C-alpha cells in the first residue's frame, strides 16, 4: 500500500536530522505530519520516563563506599553499557586514509617498468640528542604579519626626494604603500627617468609639495611580487658556463612599459596644472655650502 510505504520512507529521512531522539515505535497508516509529531512525543516520553537507579554503593562513612571500583563496575553492569559518541562529520572525513604508496614508472631496459614507492618515508637519520622543545614565545610575528607604518608626512601624491639607489637626489611622486611596507613611486618616467619603482620609506625625504592624485587609478596588479627581482640560478654543472647566469641584463618587459604609460599619463595631467612643478621634478636635490638639512624646511 502506498500508505505503508510512505511512512517507511519518511522514517530514515526524519531520523537523520534528529538522531538524538530514538523512537522505536513504528506507527502504521498515519499521515506524515501526524507521524512526525507522534514520533517526537514518543521519544520525549521515553526520555522523561527514564528512571535513574539509586546509588548501588551504600555509604559506610562520608567519602567511603562499601564496594570497590571493580565491584561497582560489575554491579552497575557497565560491561554491557558501553556507549560511543555519535560519529561526527570530521571523524567521517578522517577515515579516508591518505595514500601510503605510489607507483612510479622507471626507465631502462629489463627493469620491470614501474616501482612501488612509499610516499612518506622513514627518516634516514635520528639525532643522538633530541632537540629540546622550544618554549612558547609571545609576540614574535613573521615578516608578513608585521604592522606596516607610514609617516604622516607621506600621503598619496607627495613629492619625495630619493636618497639612495641609482636615482638618488631625484624628486619623485609617491603613489601608494605596498603590502610589504615599501612605497610605490614613479618619476614620471618622461620627466626624470624614474620608472614605477619601489622605494624604502626610511631612505626618502618627504617634501610638503603634493600633487592631486585622488583621481588617478593605479592598476591592482602592481604588487610586491610584480616588482620583485627575479634570479634564475640553476647551473646544470657545466663547467664552461657557470658565470653566465641567465638574467645578466635586465630587460624591460612590455607589461612594464604599458603599466608605466597608463599611470604616468594620468599623473602628468595633474602635474601640468601646477606651474613650474615639472621643472621641479626634473631637478635633483643637492646640498651646498651653508645648507644644513636639519635647518631646512622640506
Amino acid at each position: 500500500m502506498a500508505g505503508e510505504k510512505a511512512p517507511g520512507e519518511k522514517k530514515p529521512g526524519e531520523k537523520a536530522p534528529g538522531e538524538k531522539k530514538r523512537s522505536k515505535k513504528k506507527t502504521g497508516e498515519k499521515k506524515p505530519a501526524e507521524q512526525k509529531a507522534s514520533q517526537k512525543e514518543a521519544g520525549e516520553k521515553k526520555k522523561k520516563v527514564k528512571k535513574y537507579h539509586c546509588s548501588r554503593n551504600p555509604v559506610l562513612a562520608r567519602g567511603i563506599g562499601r564496594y570497590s571500583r571493580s565491584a561497582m563496575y560489575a554491579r552497575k553492569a557497565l560491561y554491557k553499557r558501553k556507549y560511543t559518541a555519535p560519529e561526527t562529520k570530521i571523524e567521517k572525513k578522517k577515515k579516508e586514509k591518505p595514500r601510503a604508496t605510489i607507483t612510479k614508472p622507471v626507465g631502462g631496459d629489463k627493469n620491470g617498468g614501474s616501482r612501488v614507492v612509499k610516499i612518506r618515508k622513514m627518516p634516514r637519520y635520528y639525532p643522538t640528542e633530541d632537540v629540546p622543545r622550544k618554549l612558547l614565545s609571545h609576540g614574535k610575528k613573521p615578516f608578513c604579519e608585521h604592522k606596516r607604518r607610514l609617516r604622516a608626512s607621506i600621503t598619496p601624491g607627495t613629492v619625495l626626494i630619493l636618497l639612495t639607489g641609482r636615482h638618488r637626489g631625484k624628486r619623485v611622486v609617491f603613489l601608494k604603500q605596498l603590502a610589504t611596507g615599501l612605497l610605490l613611486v614613479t618619476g614620471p618616467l618622461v620627466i626624470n627617468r624614474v620608472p614605477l619603482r619601489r622605494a624604502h620609506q626610511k631612505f626618502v625625504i618627504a617634501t610638503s609639495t603634493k600633487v592631486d592624485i585622488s583621481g588617478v587609478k593605479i592598476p591592482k596588479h602592481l604588487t610586491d611580487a610584480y616588482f620583485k627581482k627575479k634570479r634564475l640560478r640553476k647551473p646544470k654543472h657545466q663547467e664552461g658556463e657557470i658565470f653566465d647566469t641567465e638574467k645578466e641584463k635586465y630587460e624591460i618587459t612590455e607589461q612594464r612599459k604599458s603599466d608605466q604609460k597608463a599611470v604616468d599619463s594620468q599623473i602628468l595631467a595633474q602635474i601640468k596644472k601646477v606651474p613650474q612643478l615639472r621643472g621641479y621634478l626634473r631637478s635633483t636635490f643637492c646640498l651646498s655650502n651653508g645648507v644644513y638639512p636639519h635647518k631646512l624646511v622640506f
Partner: protein
Amino acid sequence: VFKRFVEIGRVAFISFGPHAGKLVAIVDVIDQNRALVDGPCSGVRRQAMPFKCMQLTDFVLKFPHSARQKCVRLAWQKENINEKWAATRWAKKIEAREKKAKMTDFDRYKVMKAKKMRNRIIKHEMKKLQKLSSKKGKKPEKSEKPEKAPKSEKPGKAQKPEKVPKAQKAQK
C-alpha cells in the same frame, strides 16, 4: 653719536625672551636695568622688562610717565605705530628672514629659477651697455650714462622676480 634714547614713550622692539618680536612702549624707568613697559596693541601686558632685551626704534609716543594702559593705547593708535612699523625696513627684513626660513623645497626651486632669470637679464643689459661704451671709445660722458642706467634698471628688475616667489608663497 646716539640718536635713539630711552625716554618715556619710546617704542622698543623686544629681541629675546617670552615676548620676542613684539613692540612695546616704555612707560617708566624702574632702575638702571629695568623699565616699566606696556604693549597694549601688541599683546604685551604691562610689566617690568630689562633694557637688555629691548632694542629701541625710531618711534616716540607722547604720554606722561606712568600713564595707564588706556592712555598708552590711545597714543599708540593715534600714531598708528603698527602700520609705521610694518613699513620700516627693519620689519621688512624680519619678515623676509621668516619667509626664507619657512621656504619649502619647491619654493627654493622657484626662487632659484627666478634669481637665475633675473641675473640673466641683468647680465644681458650690462653686456649691451659695455659693448656700447667700448664701441664709442673712452668718452667719459657716455660711460657715466650707461653706469647710471643699469643701477636704475636693477632695482626695477629686482622687484619683479622677488615678487614672483613671494606671490607664489602667498598663494600657497
